[in-house]
């Protein structure tokens, strides 16, 4: 049961050594830098030191409570990542597969829209572009919202 933020690559096998002992089902998710345009040089990830670790731990603990996980792990990188490099991973362990799948899915939806990371694509031409949040990620998160205490969105607020 741990969350880490780091610039270094992680090794899925090493993360899973001893993970989830006694569980019947282990699910992992790995996010990888993808280049849809063929013109990307790298992805740069900014985060909010201090808050990030706290948020990841909170989400992990909440997932463990909600889905009865026996173990969980979140590793998220920041800094500059090349195309094809792993960005982050989530692992969940539970007695049965549905709990492990749902918890990993739930954690990913939270991480996508509520963990304080911001992605910037660096083009081969030197241009940098902040990645926009996707409405589909917000929709995905709303599937779980009933039991959330976090504010869902500031998007409906009027300008001051």
């Amino acid at each position, binding site marked *: 049961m741990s969350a880490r933020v780091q610039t270094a690559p992680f090794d899925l096998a090493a993360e899973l050594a001893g993970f989830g002992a006694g569980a019947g089902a282990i699910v992992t998710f790995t996010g990888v830098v993808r280049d849809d345009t063929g013109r990307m040089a790298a992805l740069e990830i900014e985060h909010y030191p201090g808050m990030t670790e706290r948020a990841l731990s909170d989400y992990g603990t909440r997932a463990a409570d909600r889905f009865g996980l026996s173990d969980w792990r979140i590793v998220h990188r920041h800094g500059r990542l090349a195309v094809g490099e792993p960005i982050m991973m989530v692992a969940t362990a539970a007695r049965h597969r549905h709990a492990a799948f749902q918890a990993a899915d739930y954690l990913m939806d939270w991480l996508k829209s509520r963990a304080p*990371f911001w*992605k910037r694509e660096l083009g081969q031409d030197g241009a940098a572009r902040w990645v926009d*949040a996707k409405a589909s990620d917000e929709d995905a998160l709303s599937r779980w919202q009933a039991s959330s205490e976090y504010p869902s969105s500031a998007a409906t*607020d009027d*300008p*001051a």
Partner: protein
Amino acid sequence: MTLDVLYFAWLRERIGQPRERIETSAATVRDLIADLAARDDWHAAAFADLAAIRCAVDQQLADLDAPLAGAREVAFFPPMTGG
């Protein structure tokens, strides 16, 4: 009240600094934004579209009507893109 105000991603770029320490009497996040936006054109531009802004008070996500009493650190940033 003394507050550390942090900026991330394009908010940091538009405002031109990652953090600043300010004195304010703002009662809520929304009041604080009005206070900051009045400081100069860069702050005004950064806060022009509140729908594009998220915030955290003392490292917890908060909405714009969250009270600031007792707060020490407020962060502003665009919608998060983790994972």
